[in-house]
């Protein structure tokens, strides 16, 4: 397993007035053998980042490296494997699950070796190898997601990228897939980028948590530190909004302030200065003296702040009570 790093990775869609920068100069490192959890709302660019890594969307700038060696060719990129969100869509309905997995096994193997490998992988993800001949339609969502994981592992990847792999599953199944991911990661020492919109899920599997907002990483650090003492107000907002037992809707949180924008800004036209300032509970809409937020982009200099936070006021500790 090797280290995956994004350096100034940028992805643009469209041209002219409809142009959209989905990923805007992202710097992120996934250390070898560890799990980095990437959270953010839909449209924040987290899936696009993963797709750029495996070459499904072209990058417009920056570099993606595996242990310092930039990924350029298709052969390079095969060392990264992506597991998709919807296991009902990511397996070919016409192919048996064995064929789907075998397809990803590197070509140099002989047929018998491939069959053995498929059986080994199915066993690894907790499925009966005898099921290799069944079609995806005969499997439940959780079982399909196990097959998708097995297919990703079949390619002998250096890094596995998991894109919202539990969000299409039922809660009772989600648990078993998360257990599997954690178990595989520990047994095989996998390097993983684990993408999810659900902080609780990300927290459960990740060593490091990175938070993405409008195409940028706004905070990244050790999982416990980010959750217990977030340095970016957006992380705090996410933590406050996560539904939990024992937390009532009426308990006010800073982000409920009616002076703030309720809507995320359009990614076609991100606001000047800090991209979060119109939704920020400690920003210029609640503290008028903080004009810097609306004028100066906090991204430069983020590397020097705690948790690499893209916030001018990251030094203010935002402790989350009771967590």
């Amino acid at each position, binding site marked *: 397993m090797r280290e995956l790093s994004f350096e100034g990775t940028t992805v643009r869609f469209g041209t002219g007035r409809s142009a959209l920068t989905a990923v805007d100069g992202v710097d992120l490192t996934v250390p070898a053998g560890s799990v980095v959890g990437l959270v953010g*709302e*839909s449209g924040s660019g987290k899936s696009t980042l993963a797709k750029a890594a*495996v*070459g*499904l969307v072209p990058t417009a700038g920056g570099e993606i490296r595996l242990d310092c060696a930039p990924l350029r060719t*298709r052969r390079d*990129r*095969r060392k*990264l494997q*992506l597991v*998709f969100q919807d296991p009902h869509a*990511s*397996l*070919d*309905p*016409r*192919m048996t699950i064995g064929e*789907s997995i075998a*397809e*990803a096994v590197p070509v140099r193997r002989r047929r018998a070796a491939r069959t053995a490998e498929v059986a080994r992988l199915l066993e690894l993800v907790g499925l009966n190898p005898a099921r290799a001949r069944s079609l995806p339609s005969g499997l*439940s969502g*959780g079982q399909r997601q196990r097959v*998708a994981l097995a297919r*990703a592992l*079949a*390619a002998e990847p250096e890094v596995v990228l998991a894109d919202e792999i539990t969000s299409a599953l*039922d*809660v*009772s*199944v*989600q*648990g*078993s897939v*998360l*257990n599997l991911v*954690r178990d595989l990661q520990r047994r095989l020492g996998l390097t993983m980028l684990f993408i999810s*919109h659900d*902080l*609780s*899920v990300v927290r*459960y599997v990740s060593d490091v948590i990175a938070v993405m907002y409008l195409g940028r990483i706004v905070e990244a650090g050790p999982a416990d530190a980010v*959750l217990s003492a977030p340095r970016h107000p957006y992380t705090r907002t*996410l*933590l*406050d*909004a*996560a*539904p*939990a*037992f*024992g*937390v*009532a*809707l009426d308990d006010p949180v800073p*982000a*409920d302030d009616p002076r703030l924008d*309720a*809507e*995320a800004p359009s990614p076609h036209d991100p606001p000047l200065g800090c991209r979060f300032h119109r939704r920020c509970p400690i920003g210029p809409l609640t503290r008028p003296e903080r004009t810097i937020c609306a004028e100066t982009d906090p991204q430069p200099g983020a590397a020097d702040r705690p948790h690499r936070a893209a916030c001018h006021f990251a030094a203010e500790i935002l402790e989350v009570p009771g*967590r």
Partner: protein
Amino acid sequence: MGREQWQAALRNPVGAVAAGLLVVLAILAVVAPIVWGDAAEETDPAALSQGSTSEHVLGTDTLGRDILLRVLVATRYSLGLALLATAICVVAGVILGVLPAVLGRRAGRLVTAAVNLAVAFPGLLLALFFAVIFGVGARGAVLAIGLAGAPSFARLVQTNVAAVAGRDYVAAARVAGVGRFRLIARHLLPNIGEPLVVNATVMAGTALLSFAGLSFLGLGVQPPAYDWGRLLGEGLDRIYINPAAALAPGVAVIVAGLAFTLLGESIAQVVGVRAVRRRTVPEPAPQEAAVAEAEPDAVLAADDLRVAFPAPGGGWTHPVDGVRLTVRRGETVGIVGESGSGKSLTALAVAQLAPDAAHVTAQRLEVAGVAPLGRTGAEVRELLGTKVAMVFQDPMTSFNPSMRVGRQLAEVTRVHERQGRRAALARAVDRLRTVRVPAPERRAHQYPHEFSGGMRQRAMIAMGLMSTPELIIADEPTTALDVTVQRQVLRLLKDVQADTGAAVVLISHDIAVVAQLCERVVVMYAGRVVEEVPVERLGQAAHPYTRALLASVPDLATDRDRPLATIAGRPPDPADRPEGCAFAPRCEFADDACRVRPGLAAVAPDQRAACWHPRSQPLNLALDAVTGGQA
């Protein structure tokens, strides 16, 4: 297409007739030339250009040959040429169609443009043009008809390939390193096979007709060979003397053409392009218990609510199987369950929005004092239109994309209260303000796509508030939204409930979301209610399924070093539920008693569970502090 689908295509009467005709034609094509080939060539100088006689049923041609035999023998040549032309068309079409997927972006575009240009060219003209190039004769005509049909087939292939190429499994194969050609052979072509088979079948019928046309014009088959088209041409000269000579080959062309086209149609029907409607009624459910007295202030009272769908193999399945649900005025009730538990279908049935194929029955169903079952659609709309509001999961598809949001809201008032346009629009703006849509005057004039997901969901709630609803049903209203927006929408629902006094039914797969908003939680499993519990008693949930659900969701306090609790197995298929308790096969407490279906029974005040072995010890969760939903 699986074997069952082929069988289904043949069970359909139209498909069976078409297939039968094709079999007869195929037998004729093989047998007729062998048996009657010589007889059909035999000239009879004693019987030139005769009408119908006992010897020659359909008469003879100018050389005294028997027309009936000639029509029968021509089957092989006519069908063979048509199928050959179809094969050329399909092969050329598939090659042209997948080329853009193989070539790079620029070359691909060029091919697409060329195909589009060729499609715009009239097919017959193209065929005539090719016929001139390849020379008059059967070979020229086959090439002409085949190539003339290729562009439209190529376009069909292109469209379907483009649709499949966007699927995740194709992306997954690319990530796994599968090459372009293998991608086409293994992933793209097999998955577009159905529309191609349908179209090729229909195309064979068309090719047959075109061929007859070309031969009739003298551009197709040349003497001494003959096909139906040429026989038709010869017969037409003498149509006033012997009409049968022209009609017989004409009928043959029509019958064969129809057989191909109808077979294509019935295949299309089976593979799901067109649905067949069945309108029979399922067996009435066995009367279980006497209907309990409705609570006097219930805004929704359902007893033994069932929703049945026709099963593919005959019979019926019941995704909702005897649900009892009472919602009091002003109450917020959450319905929780996994996919397939029947929670959404229950809500749709209550709001009289179940799909057409569904059959809804209940021993009692009263919504806002109205019993909708057995009434016509118009009556129900009249009675319930203003009393029940629905909020759906996907706010993008629940609005008409081509209508401004304000007008869509106003329409509710205009239809139900017959208000003027201006007054209705003013109310729409007012309601948008109520749900805290910023700048409501401006946003009322925008289209749904100009709204973000959260704003669209607010607008959907505003639409429900255009009249004075007594019941708001929200079906997974926040599933497509982010946590920050989810919180806003849930808070809004809570405010709306407090302001209007309407009852709210919130349906969700997420028990934590439900616990935040609701006073009472109804847990559904396999089409039934397994537990009803006040939210503050969730920590003492009695049904093993409820407890497992609560334990399996990680939250921000879950121990990261311990595996998450899981529920072994999977929910039963509605067509194949176990006798007795549906959860028993996955339940650690199940025993012989669970082979009998448990009814909902009180386990604590206001708490009822359908379980023979209800649990009583508190759950080991930080749930004692649950206060969500307390007004």
